[in-house]
């Protein structure tokens, strides 16, 4: 796939670069680069041998020393790892991004209207566009939210949507994350590291900045404060230091200049939330919560939770405190509901979806179920309420025993699973040893919704660093790289 007049670097580094049916971010065909990757290869060619590897090592060390780590569950306690980092940027053109941006804004608008509707009149259910049982059987549907008004009718203030690219290069939505999406701190620190290790390369591209994210987030949270609280006290609620995303919580709180609180820092009195400070109790107005619904208030939800604040839900119901995101947003990122999102967009906005969905089989439908059970070796099966790559079957890479196990589970509880065709995500060049090799990537941009909608130009590109692997989740051996959205 080498260009005719390949440089020494290219002949060496690209000798194992494999192209097949999956879309490649760098090559548009054998030996033909996408033009926006040309300066990158040119720059890499100008570096001394080993230099790429050396810079990557410097970046790794800097991540470790800064404690930019995540915690791996289910192993020895306190297993901290750095999030594997790939130094080759993923480049998105201005044109490509324009579509993504419009599509994401459209989607978050429709999903917020949907949440408002199902927790109030329920028009979409009465009109039969979305079946009632899909909504009411979802374990993230919160009856407590029915009839409750939220500021500006914003349920999902912070959203991270997972996109992938099909074989023709089209971006499609794989998953919406509407509860407590994470990863944005890696987007920000990846950028900082990239600017340090490739300053010249970075300058030579016109990359749109993303550093304004924390300020936009703060503005979003402020715009959602309860009425009559002009100088709201905004806090970030974290489950604490043992949570896998604790680094991110601390990072965002520091960047926004707000307090990072844990459940034990907050107390409720007369339906008002206070935080315990050295100078007494201080009222809290907006909580950017990074704790799941189930754990947030032991009085209203899981009684065994020690992460939450007793009485928080009553204070919320009384309108004395805002939560971002609202309770009960998980019903709209349920993987079975996902199949209806195009209809939801049509219903509320009378528009066609700008970003399409991946074909999804609902297993509650007998015909689909039959098809899926007969074709498990070709499909991907996902549990509807799980995230992080847990509870998944990837058909082509599974064993017969795993398929049997999933067949059994599907028959026992069809509502709990969906199936999708196995899609070969697009591949982007990654540094493996001294070579560039293609690896599957996805893209998680972050969308903020307060007074208006902000889509930050960029996102977290996650990489399945294992050759051939399709799982990009950090808990499953994935890594990440910086995403450069070009301004022209």
């Amino acid at each position, binding site marked *: 796939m080498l260009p005719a007049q390949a440089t020494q670097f290219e002949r060496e580094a690209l000798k194992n670069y494999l192209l097949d049916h999956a879309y490649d971010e760098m090559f548009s065909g054998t030996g033909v680069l996408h033009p926006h990757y040309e300066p990158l290869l040119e720059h890499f060619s100008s570096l001394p041998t080993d230099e790429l590897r050396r810079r990557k090592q410097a970046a790794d060390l800097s991540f470790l020393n800064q404690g930019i780590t995540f915690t791996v569950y289910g192993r020895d306690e306190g297993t901290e790892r750095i999030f594997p980092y790939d130094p080759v940027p993923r480049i998105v053109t201005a044109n490509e991004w324009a579509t993504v941006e419009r599509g994401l804004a459209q989607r978050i608008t429709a999903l917020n209207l949907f949440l408002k509707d199902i927790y109030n009149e329920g028009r979409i259910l009465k009109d039969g566009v979305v079946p009632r049982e899909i909504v009411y059987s979802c374990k993230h549907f919160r009856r407590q939210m029915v009839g409750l008004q939220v500021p500006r009718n914003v349920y999902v203030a912070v959203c991270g949507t997972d996109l992938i690219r099909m074989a023709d290069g089209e971006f499609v939505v794989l998953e919406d994350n509407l509860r407590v999406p994470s990863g944005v701190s890696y987007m920000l620190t990846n950028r900082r590291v990239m600017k340090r290790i490739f300053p010249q390369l970075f300058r030579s591209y016109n990359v749109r900045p993303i550093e304004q994210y924390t300020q936009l987030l703060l503005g979003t949270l402020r715009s959602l404060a309860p009425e009559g609280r002009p100088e709201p006290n905004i806090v970030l609620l974290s489950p604490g*230091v043992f949570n896998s995303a604790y680094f991110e919580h601390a990072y965002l709180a*520091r960047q926004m200049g707000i307090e990072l609180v844990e459940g*034990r*820092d907050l*107390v409720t009195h007369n339906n008002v939330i206070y935080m315990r*400070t050295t100078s*007494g109790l201080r009222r809290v107005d907006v909580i950017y919560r990074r704790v799941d619904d189930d754990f947030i208030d032991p009085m209203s939800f899981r009684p065994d939770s020690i992460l939450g604040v007793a009485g928080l839900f009553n204070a919320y119901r009384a309108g004395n405190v805002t939560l971002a995101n609202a309770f009960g947003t998980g019903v709209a990122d349920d993987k079975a509901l996902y199949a209806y999102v195009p209809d939801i967009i049509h219903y509320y906005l009378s528009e066609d979806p700008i970003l399409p969905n991946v074909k999804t089989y609902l297993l509650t439908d007998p015909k689909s179920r039959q098809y899926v059970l007969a074709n498990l070796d070709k499909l991907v099966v996902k549990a509807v309420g799980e995230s992080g790559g847990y509870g998944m079957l990837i058909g082509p890479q599974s064993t017969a025993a795993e398929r049997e196990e999933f067949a059994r589970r599907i028959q026992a509880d069809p509502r709990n699973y969906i199936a999708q065709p196995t899609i070969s995500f697009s591949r982007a060049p990654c540094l493996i040893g001294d070579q560039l090799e293609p690896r599957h990537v996805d893209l998680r941009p972050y969308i903020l919704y307060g007074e208006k909608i902000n889509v930050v130009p960029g996102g977290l590109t996650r990489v399945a660093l294992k050759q051939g692997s399709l799982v990009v989740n950090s808990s499953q051996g994935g890594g990440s790289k910086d995403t450069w959205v070009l301004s022209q």
Partner: protein
Amino acid sequence: MLSRVADSLYWMSRYIERAEHTTRLLDVNLNLMLDESAASADRRWQRMLHALGNPKSVVWAGDPYDLTRSLIFDTGNKASILSCIISARENSRQVREQISTEQWQRLNSLFLQVTRPELQLAAPANSEQPTEFLQQVIEAIHQFQGVTDSTMSHGEGWHFIQVGRYIERATATALLLEAYHADLWSQPEHVPEGNEYLFMMGLLRSATAFEAYCKVYTADLTPDRILEFLLLDAEFPHSLRFAIDNLQHALESIDNESGKSRAEPLRRLSGRLQAMLSYSSVDEILTGDVVAYLRGIQIECRAIHEAIYNLYIDYSVQAALAG
């Protein structure tokens, strides 16, 4: 500032101070041991354990290197250097957004340095290795304290760090003096013999005080001057008086910032301890019961610790809403 944050900064600082103190005692004693007959080893190491508050599960069994290893690496022992560094780092991790990046990086790399698995495997009884290791730890801690002072705002959080540091230092110094009591001050009319010089040297160096002492009194070491210097000197950072003065100053600054009217009991306790040290003379102390005096200081420090908790950290919600 959040109460939990104040709590973590306070303990981060105490653990760092404790790690430094333990490290220095080990380093000094391993060094002085070389000049001594094996017969006095029992006394030396037992005295050191006394100065460390006789930590549970650590016993003197005759081998200084075994003891050293256990005081450095045994994470089953809460007082080991490793345990202290882990606890300090764990506390700082919980307030990651409150301290400066430089502080975090310095402490985190100390943590990574001392928890390297190969270090524990490669730590057999070897006379060179512990010394080098101990010096690296002290150096790293000094750097941490340096960046704490130069990169963190000297606001409330920094003052809580000072409170932790000086309350720990005051307690440790009082205990250190108590451990040397039998050797230095129990018999006032006793004529010094050869070994005593090593005791006195050991004590001064355990408080980094040898050079500072010499500047004031010359190298003429006497037990009463040493007691005077380590208890009552106003300018030396490891003297008790200096520690209590700084503790008092930090508490006043916190009091001003947080503006509490309920601070009275705490003010009384710390003010009384400060006055006691400012207006004592060493002759008075020596004619009285030295051990009781030193224990009194430790008890006052504990009472101050509790008063800080009642006032800033663990107060009842009712009291806070009422006041």
